[in-house]
């Protein structure tokens, strides 16, 4: 049985940086390095905090403990109470006070402990954080980032495996992104923090310990760009073609990107050439990239962990049909969680999109 205990002792997955307490290590990092996704987010947070001392972290147990996933490991030690704030146990309070701090120029980065615990903050996120810029006619920017370890596959108890991204994407004013690789995690967390807009940053928790190469120079160069105009919002909003193919397009994001790539591999053995698109951003949805691919392949499957019904795949499917209808050989198919609450852990691998279910959908669209 998979458990939460699989994590290593520190998030960085590398020897702790030798920096004097209170004195953040100035980042002369070798490029590229192998990092876990959790380590990449940790490094990205550190880089953002070094870049701008208005950046601060808020959340439950993110201080001495380093967060239940250790993503903030070491940051409290190096940046202190004032910038790594263990908060009272109240999610609405965290988001609400972050809004107030952002109004004074701070860039709060909130950690919600688990996906299922974001809902007490739903009102603050939906009616305040999302709408303040509009309400104020642009006078108030709220560069708040809300990090949410999300999705399942870790054998957890209720409320610890949910995928609520579509519940936020319907609300204008929020940006919703989800990285699928350590490189994107490292880059996108910094772009999210630099963005003047509120960003919901969904971290696929089952992928926290996957390793990958991280080149730290790219995002640094982009954010250093003298113009000051490059906040990274645009970069993190673009989908990525994770694998080129010509027969069918499989669209995924966050936790399901690896699955889509696996499916492409298996399909290739069967002679089907799958293009995989990693959306990266759910709001805005980079439908241009997907539609371009759909026009090429004529077949699209979208895969996410959230329940299919009223999920983000519905929006994607609608847009592809609207914009590429006459290029399609088959309807866009969706592979997602079922229309039930997230079930007990023994069922989760039946509940979640699996390699077989993705391949089944690929076969179905290929049948036309």
């Amino acid at each position, binding site marked *: 049985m998979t458990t939460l205990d699989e994590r290593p002792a520190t998030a960085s997955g590398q020897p702790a940086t030798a920096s004097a307490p209170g004195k953040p290590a100035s980042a002369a990092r070798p490029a590229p390095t192998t990092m876990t996704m959790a380590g990449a987010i940790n490094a990205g947070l550190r880089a953002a905090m070094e870049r701008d001392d208005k950046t601060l972290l808020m959340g439950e147990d993110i201080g001495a403990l380093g967060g239940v996933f250790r993503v903030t490991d070491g940051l409290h030690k190096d940046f202190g109470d004032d910038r790594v704030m263990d908060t009272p146990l109240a999610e609405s309070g965290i988001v609400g*006070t972050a809004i107030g*701090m952002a109004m004074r120029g701070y860039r709060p980065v909130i950690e919600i402990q688990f996906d299922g615990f974001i809902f007490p903050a739903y009102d*603050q996120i939906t*009616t305040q954080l999302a709408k303040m810029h509009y309400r*104020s006619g642009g006078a108030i920017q709220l560069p708040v980032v809300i990090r949410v370890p999300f999705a399942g596959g870790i054998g957890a108890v209720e409320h610890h495996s949910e995928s609520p991204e579509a519940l936020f994407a319907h609300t204008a004013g929020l940006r919703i992104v989800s990285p699928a690789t350590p490189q994107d995690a490292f880059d996108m967390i910094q772009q999210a923090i630099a*963005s003047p807009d509120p960003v919901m940053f969904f971290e696929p928790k089952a992928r926290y310990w996957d390793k990958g190469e991280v080149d730290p120079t790219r995002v640094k160069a982009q954010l250093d760009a003298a113009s000051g105009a490059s906040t990274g919002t645009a970069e993190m909003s673009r989908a990525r073609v994770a694998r080129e193919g010509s027969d069918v397009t499989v669209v995924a994001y966050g936790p399901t990107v690896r699955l889509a790539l696996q499916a492409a591999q298996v399909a290739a053995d069967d002679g089907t050439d799958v293009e995989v698109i990693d959306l990266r951003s759910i709001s805005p949805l980079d439908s241009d990239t997907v539609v371009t691919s759909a026009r090429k392949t004529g077949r699209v499957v979208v895969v996410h962990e959230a329940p299919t019904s009223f999920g983000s795949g519905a929006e994607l499917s609608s847009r592809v049909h609207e914009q590429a209808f006459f290029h399609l050989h088959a309807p866009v198919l969706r592979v997602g969680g079922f229309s039930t609450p997230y079930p007990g852990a023994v069922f989760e691998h039946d509940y979640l999109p699996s390699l077989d279910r993705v391949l089944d959908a690929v076969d179905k669209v290929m049948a036309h």
Partner: protein
Amino acid sequence: MSAGGPLSTDGLVQLLTADGQRTAHEQFDPYADHLTADDLRAMWRDMTLVRAFDKEATSLQRQGELGLWVQSWGQEGAQIGSGHALNGQDFVFPSYREHGVALTRGVDLVEVLRIFRGLQHGAWTPAEHHFHLYTLVIGSHALHATGYAMAMAKDGLVASGDPAKDGAVVAYFGDGATSQGDVAEALTFASVYDAPVVFFVQNNQYAISESATRQSRVPIADRGKGVGIPSVRVDGNDVIASHAVTRWALEHARSGQGPVLIEAFTYRMGAHTTSDDPTRYRPKAEEQLWAERDPIARLEAYLTSTGELSDDFRTEVEAEAKALGERTRTTVRAWTKPDTLGMFDHVYAEPHASVEAERAWFDRYQRSFADQEATR
């Protein structure tokens, strides 16, 4: 009024009696003694102006010029008294009835009506006035106020000892709001982080139709005790006491001693909004009773008794009020609908593909009508 309940008058700080006599108060006199006749006249003027404005807005609503109006009638004492205790560096988070406070923050009251004519959701630049936008979701802004105060402390704008620098935040909300979880969380965060914030509750005895007894069995001020925040009950229809108590609270907060909760006991003389019908839930006699405790009349009685309210000054303020009413009328009536494409502005600070695409579509769509017109 049940003894000890939220409608009791136990322990209310009062510096002016209902008939306008100055009474002594050991703790709070020092916070009122600095008030000159000019200061008091300024308060009287502000109360008078905001009431005149309020009446004008009400009639504009009746005439169909505004979708809705929310009166501050009856609460001018609490609002002007506390507003006059603020410094420039303090920052206010109002709810939606704080037109009196808006006035003291230099907001042009007429501009407030843009919201109620449906032109925009916010009608002033908060940073300019140190006065945040109105918040309509009950209690939400108590947390924003607390966060803002936490940030002021981080920025060293508290307890520096420099009076030109030290500031605090005041969050205004109602008796009903105190039941919201967000307000409770705000009290907790404020207390735990020692935030320089004053929670100013106007207990106007009603949340729309519901008596404050629906929100609490004990005085609203007791909410502070749950988290160890010092609290005071003040007669909100006594502008001088409201002022003194707020001044004390602000000094407490600015000097780094943490949050304070003030309950200003007052009465909403009008309907909840122009959509409301108080005859359904409260007796006329009660309104009558409170009319006799009017905050403006009270200060007027005092200033008259001390001979500090000259006829000239009255005439001047009356003229000012009339002018404000006229300007309100003319301005509001002259407001036209702005360019429709503006509804797509400011959803995000940086471009967002969905919004851009929809704006472009709508632009084409609108133009297509214009084109049709043109070709006809």
